[in-house]
């Protein structure tokens, strides 16, 4: 059959050695009336035909890399250096598993050690784990870390309403069986400073996002101090965009206790939402509460340096129901992609990419803000995303943008999906991938749509 290499002779030899007459006899412990059902699946295809079928499905999707795209809201179209896919495509990385046998897994282990180091340097933190599934689950793990830090005695978690709505939803899902109360995000008009007033001795952590979901750079300066003035132990977790850290002061230098985020911008494609990468860093003092895998440096029997998974007594395979989390794997290959991305861009390249995002976003915002009918709502500064108040519902504008000639334009995110009454607010993302010509075409199209909409009213 497809990937089973056995010949008839092989099977005969093997069945004889086992002492049964047929493959079916291997399964006599399975209840007979349920054994060998016919599965109602489509007939098997050859490799050639399966590729044709998948090509057809692929062609039914808009490829956001092939058109001017201004859609972000948690997933971003960034340039991926060629080296990234070359490295993660190598079978030695892709077809290895968890480095349980360290002596034959030094490639994976050292790459994770480098990943942990790069995340620490990027975020300004002491220690990073080998990664979580994505930014949303990393946020939930921050809540659990804080909950465990206070031995489940502190019940309150304050989360900024300007945290990505998917992340806030996932935090609620993860904590539904815990004695935790998630609060602070009742109204989108609540700035982080107002959360501070609600911090008390029952507060496990405060979670903010910077730049926030609406693109705004939050005033983090002094936030940790003011939280700790109300309660010295409450943890501050900051969700951040890793590209922005090429330019902006990292949350670690503002006194954050946990820094985490979505690593997709670091060389991972859009892939319709996954697999992505949750990066996660904290302070040295909290290393025993950290979830997930950790790789550490050590020496071998001859004194040579090497790498192993370490501090595993936190983890599920040892601690079972007392583990810091149920997470077993990490996002190995995605963490490797981010490691290669940060290496091949390096100190200068990441700064340049971050600046390109910043300047292009501000160029686009200035031009859109000058259009009749549109206004940019962000108070400066923002990073590579901003909110535009539109003259008509975003859904209509986006539909018109997709009809643009000569090429469709993929407009920004419709904030009406998440915030009541915000159907006319568009979250626009601009990255290094948006050329000046693309931005100008987008602005011109918005202007034309505004005129057309006014004509129709």
């Amino acid at each position, binding site marked *: 059959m497809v990937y*089973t*290499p*056995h010949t008839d002779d092989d099977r005969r030899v*093997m*069945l004889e050695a086992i002492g049964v007459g047929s493959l079916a006899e291997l399964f006599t*412990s*399975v209840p007979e009336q*349920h054994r*060998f059902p016919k*599965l109602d*699946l489509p007939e098997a295809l050859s490799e050639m035909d*399966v590729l044709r079928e*998948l090509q057809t499905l692929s062609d039914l*999707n808009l490829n*956001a890399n092939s058109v001017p795209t201004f*859609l972000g809201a948690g*997933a971003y179209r960034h340039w991926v*250096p060629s*080296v990234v896919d070359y*490295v993660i495509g*190598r079978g030695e990385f892709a*077809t*290895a598993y*968890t480095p349980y046998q360290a002596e*034959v897994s030094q490639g994976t282990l050292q790459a994770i050690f480098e990943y*942990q180091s790069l995340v620490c*340097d990027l975020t300004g933190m002491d*220690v*990073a784990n080998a990664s979580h*599934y994505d930014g*949303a689950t990393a946020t939930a793990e921050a809540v659990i870390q804080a909950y465990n830090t206070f031995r489940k005695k502190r019940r309150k978690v304050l989360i900024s309403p300007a945290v990505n709505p*998917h*992340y806030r939803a996932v935090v609620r*899902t993860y904590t539904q*069986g815990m004695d935790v109360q998630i609060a602070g995000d009742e109204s989108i008009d609540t700035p982080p400073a107002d959360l501070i007033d609600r911090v008390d001795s029952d507060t496990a952590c405060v979670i903010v996002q910077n730049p926030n979901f609406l693109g705004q750079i939050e005033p983090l300066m002094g936030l940790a101090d003011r939280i700790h003035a109300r309660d010295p132990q409450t943890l501050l977790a900051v969700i951040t965009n890793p590209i922005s850290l*090429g330019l902006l*002061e990292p949350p670690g*230098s503002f006194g954050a206790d946990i820094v985490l985020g*979505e690593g997709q911008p670091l060389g991972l494609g859009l892939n319709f939402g996954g697999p992505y990468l949750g990066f996660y860093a904290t302070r040295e003092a909290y290393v025993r509460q950290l979830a997930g895998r950790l790789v*550490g440096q050590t020496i*071998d029997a001859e004194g040579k340096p090497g790498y*192993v998974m370490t501090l595993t007594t936190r983890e599920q395979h040892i601690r*079972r*129901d007392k583990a810091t989390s149920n*997470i*077993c794997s990490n*996002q*190995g290959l995605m963490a490797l992609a981010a*490691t*290669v991305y940060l*290496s*091949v*861009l*390096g*100190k200068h*390249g990441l*700064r340049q990419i971050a600046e390109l995002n910043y*300047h*292009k976003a501000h*160029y686009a915002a200035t031009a859109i803000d000058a259009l009749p009918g549109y206004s940019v709502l962000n108070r400066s500064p923002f990073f590579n995303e901003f909110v535009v108040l539109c003259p008509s519902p975003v859904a209509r504008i986006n539909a018109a943008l997709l009809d643009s000639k000569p090429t469709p334009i993929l407009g920004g995110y419709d904030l009406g999906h998440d915030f009541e009454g915000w159907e006319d607010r568009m979250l626009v993302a601009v990255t290094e991938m948006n050329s000046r010509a693309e931005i100008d075409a987008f602005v011109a199209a918005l202007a034309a749509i505004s005129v057309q909409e006014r004509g129709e009213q």
Partner: protein
Amino acid sequence: MSESLIYELSSPGRRGTPTPKLDVPEAELPAGLVREDLPLPEVSEIEVVRHFLRLSQLNYAIDKGIYPLGSCTMKYNPKINEVTARLPGFTGAHPHQPEGLAQGALRLMYELQEHLAKIGGFAGVTLQPAAGAQGELVGVLIMRAYHRARGDTQRDTILVPDSAHGTNPASTSMSGLRVVQIPSDKRGNVDLDALRSQVCDRVVGLMITNPNTLGLFEENIEEIVGIVHGCGGLVYGDGANMNALIGVVRPGDIGIDVMHYNLHKTFSTPHGGGGPGAGPVGVAAHLIDFLPDPVVVREGTDAEPHYRFHRPSQSIGRVRSFWGHFGILVRAYTYIRMHGSEGLRNVAEHAVLNANYLRCRVRDTYHVPYDRMCMHEFVAEGRISGTGSTAMDVSKRLIDYGVHPPTMYFPLIVHDALMIEPTETEPLRTVDAYAETLLRIAEEAVSDPALLHEAPHVAPVRRLDEVQAARTPVLRYRRQP
């Protein structure tokens, strides 16, 4: 054979891959918010390529040879999967682009939900969970939500056999529930009397791995399901070992209410050095409304179907950003399309054939404590009687012979366990060679025990000091001041 850290290759002022030019006017940078130091490496592109290529060569991988890690199903990862997953309409689709412009992706997800439901015998499937462990959390939260929706709020206990993966109890406690452990009996099955003594109206459900982590099919599975259902509880199937069952039996048919699939095990997606995998969850009809937000539904006509996301009415909520590990889903879908019904049964049959053949070849030398017909894997004791050699020694010595060791010291209920899962994609020649290597190592344990105890001798590094790693953790590179 060691490789410098990427930081150690850094030289001040060196540039990597060039970045695009700025083609718009500069805006003023935000005062007081710009970082002064970005302490990333400064290396050239060729140095990066060589560094990671050399690192890759320090790894063992399926593409190099047999990788019989029990419970991990390290089967061949077909290369067509990598081609389909990289089609531009998949890699370039933005997760927020309008549903009308993502019909190919949504249709693939819908079909995969349907295929997995048919393979497992379930009424509905969520593709969202990022890994098996997250699938478990989803499954336990669904069971909890089901009871609460019925007003059965006193149920707070999950029963877990002692042979279970550590993620089962960990997922239970993350869901705010209590774990009660059920012992195994002499044949490696769940001890029915012990199970009967624990069922009551506080039981949310039982989490059962079948085949269990001894590689054995639970002989009393229908009775077990009956006992748990009898007290109003639900049965969760840990689908980690589904490779033994595809096309052989549908877990839903024997009364399993919820189960996760590991696409990176059974459905051949690459393990990636520890992820990303995917852990879809299948549920019986009475649990379908509790699935995570969202699932994909089909509307319209057969001639003109339309696919869209839908939030189930009593959903436990969103469990991750966006819609799942889509790139992994494409690979699993490809695998299922390459096989069809008979092809999948063929997979399970040969997985079980290879495991039993290897068991029979080594069992006179390595004691197999529950020695009956196994499924896709078996558990032997790694200690060699009459010598001081342990499962660790045997494993490390296997590395010297250029093959990957089995899972060791799991399950916990077998001393010095070696859990061996050859998978169906290994040719007879490779399985024979592995058996002969194991037998030779057993002889060496008698003739030259130090050879085992000091192994590996020919790996990139010798045995690593894990105690030191944990006692004085060095978890990141730090520049010398």
